[in-house]
């Protein structure tokens, strides 16, 4: 047998000194965080009765203002669709500036990516608060918050999608003497299109989830009903709102999954 002559690769690597120390540090960081988050076994154990009390008062969900809530839900979806659509359209040119090796140099890529990172770092509710100040209470502020949030998300991931396309066609067009803008439009974007569709659908799902909560800060949509329900101890209405949000969010995610499958095809 010559198998002894050939050394097989190890299945696992034993962690070295630095590896071991970093595991310990991570473990301590988690314990320290639990402490900072006010971890309390007593309060956890005393919560089930209180939760049961909430559910008994919230059940059955209220049905008498269903029509008003349904219209609020429609407004919520309108905020999400309008905001996501504007955000997706604006994301494309921004992503072209953020994608490395497509249109502009590394310096511009970096600046645009930092700006996109900043947009993502600001929570959507904070954007909604900013736009409520800027354009007043109501769904328009919510729509703008969703649009900017979508730019942060789609701008970055469209750029990644473009960077992940096969560089071969772009090289072939470079060899014909094509300009960068022509290469982007005729090789990079067509190749990234299925990924764009998938990313956009994720953006829309994210927008729907975010739009249901904007009402908490007065930026339109069904969130206001949730807040009022809790503030007035009208738990059955709050329960109705929660269930409606769950149904809509799950529904949109399912539709998104089906569309992605249709457009991109299985296993690609």
């Amino acid at each position, binding site marked *: 047998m010559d198998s002894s002559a050939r050394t097989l690769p190890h299945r696992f690597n034993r962690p070295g000194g630095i590896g071991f120390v970093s595991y310990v540090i991570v473990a301590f960081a988690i314990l320290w965080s639990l402490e900072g988050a006010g971890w309390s076994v007593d309060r956890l154990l005393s919560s089930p009765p209180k939760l049961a009390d909430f559910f008994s008062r919230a059940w059955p969900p209220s049905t008498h203002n269903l029509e008003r809530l349904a219209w609020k839900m429609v407004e919520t979806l309108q905020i999400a669709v309008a905001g996501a659509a504007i955000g997706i359209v604006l994301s494309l040119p921004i992503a072209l500036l953020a994608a490395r090796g497509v249109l502009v140099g590394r310096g511009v890529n970096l600046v645009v990516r930092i700006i996109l990172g900043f947009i993502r770092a600001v929570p959507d509710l904070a954007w909604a608060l900013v736009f409520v100040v800027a354009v007043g209470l109501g769904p328009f502020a919510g729509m703008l918050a969703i649009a900017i949030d979508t730019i942060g998300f789609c701008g970055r991931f469209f750029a990644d999608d473009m960077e992940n396309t096969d560089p071969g066609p772009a090289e072939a067009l470079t060899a*014909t003497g*094509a300009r960068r803008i022509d290469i982007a439009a005729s090789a990079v974007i067509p190749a990234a299109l299925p990924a764009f569709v998938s990313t956009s659908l994720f953006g829309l799902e994210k927008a729907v989830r975010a739009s249901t909560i904007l009402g908490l800060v007065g930026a339109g949509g069904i969130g206001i009903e949730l807040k009022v329900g809790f503030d007035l101890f009208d738990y059955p209405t709050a329960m109705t709102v929660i269930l409606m949000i769950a149904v809509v969010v799950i529904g949109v995610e399912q539709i998104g999954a089906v569309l992605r499958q249709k457009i991109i095809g299985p296993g690609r």
Partner: protein
Amino acid sequence: MQVIDLQANGLCKRFGKAAPVFLGLDFSIRQGDCVALVGANGTGKSTLLRCCLGLIAPDAGRISLLGMTMADLGPAARRDLRARTGLVGQKHNLVPRLSVLSNVIHGFLGRHSGPRYWVHSLAPAWARAAAMTALEKVGLADLALRRADQLSGGQSQRVAIARALVCNPRFLVADEPCASLDPQAGEEVMALFMTLVKREGVTVLFTSHNVQHALSYGDRILGLQGGRIAIDAPSADVTPLEMAKLYG
């Protein structure tokens, strides 16, 4: 007087920390030559072709292409120079989701810019006609509207050739143009290249693992081995034994 289309001096190239691919190559190609570049797998043929067209920069050495040095040119002049060259890549590098016709029309992007040359539906009538003529030359006119990712290997090879030929390059570089073609189609493509060389004075630099093709269609053989030029001679003077040594 002979016009020199490609002059390479002291080319060196290595990728990262790997062993160098070239250790100083010197050669020249005259206008109207049909040169076969041969060598074993991984000897750097594709890399050399990329260097010649300025798609990657050599670590050292100079390349002058059609009398100009790519490294010294600004972007506009560089595009201008590239518009006069054509490349058929080893991987055919078609844009997968576009039609065959759109891919061929992309061949005009060196001379023209803008949305009219992005997809065939928007293209000017003359460009569509010229692209169809190029497709006819490679025998694929009936697949013009087929999506490029739904072609067989040989078909996509031929589309890549049509894209490279559509803007009448002065200098054509073809990396294993017959690799995925059946024997008959391979002969036809090589014959097509020969016609270009003989009738239109196009300079052709091609690689091939088919020794017979290299010897019969190449006027000259350039053999790469161990990072150096091992053979640089008219094909008539190269013996099959010398060729065999390249791969030994």
